[in-house]
């Protein structure tokens, strides 16, 4: 187990290093560079000035040298300044990350709370009318464009009914928890509706597979009550693959959060990344993307580790074929 964790951590570090270089290179390909933006803001700068500034900031150096310089600074904790916000990137990052984790966490809990009973219900009576209805809803859930779903929810709850705010994190000047919670409802609902279908299908499939196993038949033959059989015997085994799915899904949730946050003007990481890319805020875009990668990698890593810890049949020592 220890060796497995170490090897996965090393792998994740390699992916992250490769990703940081790739993203660094990509950011360099974004339109213009910081000096272009300075020149645009100050017409008195001549092209000689621009060239001199590029030399001062090291922008005339080859890509690898610039990357090495950035990496050195980043590893010592200096992630640079945001061009648009004029503050260190780190100061922007953490409050935003907190908002996003709140959004993702709330919708993950809600999704599983909805998907679990529905998935079990569908699995207990496969191909019944209920199962077919659930199946249809799931197909709808995975096919609906999330930003359109957000738009519909805004139209219903904010425009037509006027119950909930259409965007933002909190009302101006309001610090109350209830106000924050009201702003959270629609984003969480959007993200939940977009992800609940996937979980329901996984739970249904996993339960169906467990219910076909011999141990379930044995337990049933020995007279175990139906409810005990479902909740105590089959469900724990069916949940193991769900944990993997939830972990692997963290990256997708992050993408979903980006859409949701942009739609609702919710100040989280997703919106930060989107705004920074569109606003040519190079440092911020770079760090934001790396954080998104770290989230995805952490999800994958947790999924693998939890899977091997929970299922004694899985041994990673002999895994390399």
């Amino acid at each position, binding site marked *: 187990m220890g060796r497995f964790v170490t090897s996965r951590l090393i792998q994740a570090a390699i*992916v992250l290093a*490769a*990703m940081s270089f790739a*993203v660094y290179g*990509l*950011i*360099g*390909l*974004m*339109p*213009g560079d910081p000096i272009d933006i300075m020149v645009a803001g100050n017409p008195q700068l001549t092209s000689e000035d621009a060239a001199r500034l590029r030399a001062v900031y090291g922008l005339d150096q080859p890509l690898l040298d610039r990357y090495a310089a950035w990496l050195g600074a980043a590893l010592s904790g200096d992630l640079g300044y945001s061009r648009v916000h004029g503050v260190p990137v780190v100061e922007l990052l953490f409050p935003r990350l907190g908002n996003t984790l709140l959004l993702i966490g709330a919708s993950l809990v809600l999704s599983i709370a909805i998907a679990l009973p529905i998935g079990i219900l569908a699995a207990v009576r*496969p*191909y019944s009318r209920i199962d077919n209805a659930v199946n*249809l809803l799931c*197909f*709808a859930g*995975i*096919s*609906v*464009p*999330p*930003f*359109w779903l957000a*738009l*519909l929810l*805004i*139209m219903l709850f904010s*425009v037509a009914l006027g119950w909930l705010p259409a965007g933002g994190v909190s009302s101006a000047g309001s610090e109350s928890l209830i106000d924050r919670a009201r702003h959270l409802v629609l984003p969480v609902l959007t993200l939940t509706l977009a992800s609940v279908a996937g979980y329901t299908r996984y739970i249904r499939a996993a339960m169906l597979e467990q219910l076909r196993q011999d141990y379930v038949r044995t337990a049933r033959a020995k007279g175990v009550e139906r409810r005990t059989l479902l909740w105590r015997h089959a469900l724990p085994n069916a949940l193991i693959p769900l944990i993997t799915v939830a972990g692997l899904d963290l*990256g*997708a949730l*992050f*993408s979903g959060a*980006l*859409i949701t946050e*942009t*739609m609702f003007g919710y100040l989280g990481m*997703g919106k930060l*990344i*989107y705004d920074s*890319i*569109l606003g040519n805020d190079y440092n911020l*875009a770079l760090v*934001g*993307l790396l954080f*998104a*990668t770290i*989230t*995805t*990698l952490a999800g*994958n890593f947790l999924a693998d580790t939890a899977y091997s810890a929970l299922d004694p049949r899985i041994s990673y020592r002999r895994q390399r074929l």
Partner: protein
Amino acid sequence: MTAAAILAAGQSPARLRLNRFLRHRAAVASGFLLAALVIAALLAPWIAEWRGTPPDAIDLLNRLAEPSWRHPLGTDELGRDLLIRILYGGRISLAVGLTAAVAAASIGTIIGVLAGYRGGVIDAILMRLTDFVIALPLLPLLIVLTALDLGKLPIPDGWLAGDPSGLWRIVVIIALVGWTTVARLVRGATLAVRQHEYMRAAMALGAGPMRTITRHVLPNVASPIVVATTLSIGQVILLESVLSFLGLGIQPPVASWGNMLTNAQELVWSAPRLAVVPGLAIFATVIACNFLGDGLQDALDPRALQDRR
């Protein structure tokens, strides 16, 4: 052999597949819907000419008009006919969905066959590459890729100038990140096929790699590729619509279902119709692709179906 298989023994495999497909009613309905959509999208220029409402014809006196005989779905904020723009947007969405899904499946097939057939170091490298691409945060990465200034790359200027709406750019970008599912599927299937006796027989008889791959491996992995590609058409259309909605995909004035919703967001108070119709088009197309893929799975992979009965 099950009873159903014995009863059906007199029928050709193609007939059996068709029967299994026809039993999936949602898939059949979806097939018809998609066919109708493709035909309508192909006919869009003629329909526009017949109605006398070209997709880009701005008519400021008729802004946000309600549905009427002249404009069956009404007009948008510039007085353009919504129905015609939906049809033109469909051309874009379907074209992007089909080409990007097929391109991604082709890349995936090549990588999967190579990894499964050659094995060893090549397999290890290709599969780590696949893991790497899967680990990328998809949407943020796509946003960066669409925002890049390709002028900084050594690409001939003519290529970029020839793609003002950003259509090919989207196709290339989605294909570059979307091949992983097929690659894994094909690798697994190739590994399975390689175990079979007939493969060893073929090799013993002196069949080269090209022949074994095209004659034995590819026909065996064709079904899962077809299913995965159908399902991914829907996913691609979703991605394209998100990117276009964010202003990064298909560039106006060329209509796409995604970018038609961009302006609609500000108009939900005055013209909710503009927000509902393009979204419904995306939703219906994507759900149809998903049902179609599900039906094809039933038809092409009877083992999955037998599990159900």
